[in-house]
């Protein structure tokens, strides 16, 4: 399928995966090498990119700091015994994210952008998806 979006990919120089003990994963402690980022500027989502995971720099007046105007979704990517990566109803996560966005007067994210960004990041960091049975 032809992508509607142009996602620039900048890979990290060296993966941190060998620093992670996949037999003793702790929720919220480890993160994969990259992140997907898009910025809403001048009325549209721009500068779609995958880049090395890093801290953000924020303006002191950032709304997320002052008013807690921030929304969050989480989902799991699972690997099958034959190596496929599966997501469970990701489109419903995209719709729920936009329900949250409307409630907090935030810009909605097109469902296609949500799904393409998600899948692009999973392709780049697919090796991070645990392979052990039950993962």
């Amino acid at each position, binding site marked *: 399928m032809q992508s509607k979006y142009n996602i620039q990919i900048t890979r990290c120089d060296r993966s941190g995966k060998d620093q992670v003990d996949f037999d003793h994963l702790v929720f919220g402690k*480890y*993160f994969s090498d990259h*992140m997907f980022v898009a910025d809403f500027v001048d009325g549209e989502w721009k500068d779609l990119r995958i880049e090395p995971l890093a801290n953000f720099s924020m303006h002191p007046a950032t709304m997320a700091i002052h008013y807690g105007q921030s929304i969050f979704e989480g989902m799991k990517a699972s690997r099958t015994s034959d190596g496929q990566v599966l997501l469970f109803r990701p489109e419903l996560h995209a719709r729920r994210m936009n329900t949250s966005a409307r409630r907090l007067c935030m810009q909605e994210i097109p469902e296609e952008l949500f799904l393409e960004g998600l899948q692009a990041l*999973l392709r780049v960091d697919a090796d991070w998806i645990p392979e052990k049975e039950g993962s």
Partner: protein
Amino acid sequence: MRFVFYICPTHPLQNSAGGAELRDTSFNKSK
């Protein structure tokens, strides 16, 4: 406004989804 995805590798939460959902056919292949 900024939109971000990041990945946090972990084992399953113990366990709200359960096997029933894992047999659901609504999974989307991500590759």
